[in-house]
């Protein structure tokens, strides 16, 4: 026999799904979301997403262990971070967010799979802390494609000169001015907000595609959305000045968070029971922060808080070992 035989330990077969394949499918499903962001906020949106992605990739390349760009996870982080930023954000801030997200959100933990918190949200939290004004300056939707929505090319660390057309987000409007944006506008995305806030239906479609392929666990978004809707309905019934479930579901970053951020496999529980609990926790926290917190939006903190609880949730929800009454100690 001419060719040498391959000798490896069993099993000798392997399911066709691989980690890069899952990651790149997530990227693929995000393309329509990016397109909608571009449609709503023009060239600025695309520039911001490109900037965060470049920041993420450069960091992964420079400080990651070996050749890890191909697994696609840094691209996801970059795109997701971009999608939760306002279109007018100066690009140097966006790049910095990408660098920080991948560097401190992932690489310091040891790279892919080791991180506790969602890297995109870490990047976002950093930007929120560092540039609270820039990150809450929401350009209005619906200007021409080539209009820059803010001081996009500001030189790093100069104070931004915002003279662009801005608009408060529906959540901000509600929190600080008590006005409710009509549901129709929310769903169609003709409101102010971050890039990914205006594409609820496209996000849902992307999530459904991933869930169908088995690349996303449907329990998490369903649990997040259900618990948010339930609690919002209860609160609305008790006190009708609180917004109803529809407003809660379709405003802010909830869709993006529920479908794309909370479902990050690395930072969500590994058991199905755990996934229900995790999602419900996020939903409850979102409503609580939105109604009583100092900020109009709470999705980011809700997910980060629940991320921290994942090891604990995993431990509590291990299945009972076959033929015993005992769970595997986590």
């Amino acid at each position: 026999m001419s060719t040498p035989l391959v000798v490896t330990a069993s099993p000798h077969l392997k399911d066709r799904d691989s980690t890069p394949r899952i990651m790149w499918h997530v990227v693929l499903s995000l393309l329509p979301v990016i397109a909608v962001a571009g449609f709503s906020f023009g060239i600025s949106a695309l520039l911001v997403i490109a900037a965060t992605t470049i920041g993420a990739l450069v960091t992964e390349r420079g400080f990651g262990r070996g050749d890890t760009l191909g697994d696609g996870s840094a691209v996801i982080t970059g795109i997701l971070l971009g999608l939760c930023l306002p279109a007018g954000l100066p690009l140097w801030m966006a790049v910095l967010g990408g660098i920080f997200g991948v560097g401190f959100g992932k690489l310091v933990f040891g790279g892919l799979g080791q991180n506790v918190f969602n890297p995109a949200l870490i990047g976002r939290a950093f930007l929120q802390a560092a540039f609270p004004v820039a990150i809450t300056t929401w350009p209005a939707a619906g200007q021409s494609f080539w209009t820059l929505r803010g001081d996009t090319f500001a030189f790093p660390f100069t104070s931004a000169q915002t003279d662009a057309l801005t608009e408060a987000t529906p959540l901000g409007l509600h929190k600080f001015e008590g006005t409710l944006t009509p549901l129709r506008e929310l769903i169609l995305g003709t409101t102010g907000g971050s890039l990914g806030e205006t594409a609820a239906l496209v996000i849902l479609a992307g999530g459904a595609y991933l869930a169908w392929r088995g690349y996303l666990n449907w329990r998490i978004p369903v649990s997040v959305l259900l618990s948010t809707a339930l609690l919002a309905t209860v609160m609305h019934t008790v006190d009708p000045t609180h917004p109803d479930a529809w407003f809660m579901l379709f405003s802010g970053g909830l869709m993006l968070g529920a479908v794309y951020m909370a479902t990050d496999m690395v930072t969500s529980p590994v058991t199905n029971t755990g996934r229900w609990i995790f999602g419900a926790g996020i939903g409850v926290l979102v409503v609580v922060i939105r109604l009583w917190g100092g900020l109009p939006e709470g999705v980011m903190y809700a997910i980060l808080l629940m991320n921290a609880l994942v090891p604990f949730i995993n431990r509590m929800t291990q299945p009972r070992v076959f033929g015993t009454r005992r769970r595997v100690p986590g």
Partner: protein
Amino acid sequence: MWFTSGFAHGVHPPESKELTAQLPIRRMAYPKEIVLPLRQHAGKPATLCVKVGDRVERGDKVGEADGYISVPIHSSAAGKVVDVDWWPHPDGTMAMAVRILVDPYAPQIPRPRMVPHWEGLSVDEVVQAVQDAGVVGLGGAGFPTHVKLAPPKDFPIHTLIINGAECEPYLTSDHRTMAEYPKRVHFGIRVMMQTLGVSKAVIGVERNKPDAIEALTRTIPTDLDITILPLTVKYPQGAEKMLIHAVTGHEVASGKLPVSAGVVVQNVGSAAAIAEVFETGLPLIERIVTVTGHGLTRPANLIVPVGTKLRDLLDQCGGLTADAAQVIAGGPMMGLAQANLDAPITKGTTGIVVLARQETRTERVYPCIHCGRCLDACPVFLNPSLLGDLARVGRYDEMTDAHLSDCMLCGSCSYVCPSNIPLSQLFQVSKAGLRRAQASAP
């Protein structure tokens, strides 16, 4: 037939059984030489009882059972003993083996022997006859069958379970046995039921073998309580604990044997082998082997003399194709990849699967992304992701605490892992490491 029994979790690898599922069993031509390892079963190896230069007939002993948990080895062909030496064993090690040059002119009929009339025999005599015939579990593990026919008295047995699940991809030897020799299977079951003193037997068959289910159902002896239970098609449905769960609804307690649940599990092939012993007096010297795979020219279900070298067997099936990459003894999920095609077929070899290059695993391993697929796959509800982390740093004590001992090395976790982490492979190594540590402990 909408009702099937199954278990939670498990995986669905491509079955690839269509290559041989409808091919009738044929007898292969005798090879020029056979090699009989003295260790082909769990327990003590047989002790040599021939010497170089001896003439043996088909069915003569070449090795005697060494104690109770052991069986004799018989020659599968008439010929001359030419060598007794270490020889590659399909389990990857070297084993003492008897090499026999097959007499090309012998008619290869066994020496006439007394066929014991089983109904007149006592339980002990049946058990003895089964041991003398060298019958072992034909499903792979090769545990001596007679031992399971005489369970300890303090465990009352209520049901005999016959394993016809054949959940490994590619393999069809049990399938063909059930479809072509259903009466023989039933006769073997009759002998075993009588010996065990049970009144109930259940044959578990995955429902992807409707012709086998039909043949068995059609031939159930009217005086016996035998049920054919169609099982969900899922790997590892044929694992002993999964099968018992499907049949009885009970989980065998962790660390306990099936007898503790009041059942004895035997493989379909072993039932047929026992039938053969009491029909013709022939010991276990040949078995049905599925020779298949996308890297093989002419897949087949063959009656193969035990001791046939893999090389000779593959040659009879037209040889390997150009893109053949891996030759596996057993199924692709739990079988062993072969480095040396001089290794022989043993009593436990269910099949030889030749995988083509594109089916073999890729090498690149990614970090665990905590997708949880392995947890959803593990049939005994372990946390392979956690065990894998522990295995890589050699924390065996914590692995024990995480129920490593309950892992049956089925490979489901490795099969699904998108990061290509060799989980069950790591567990195999860990189990060995743990055994060594325990052996050297004071």
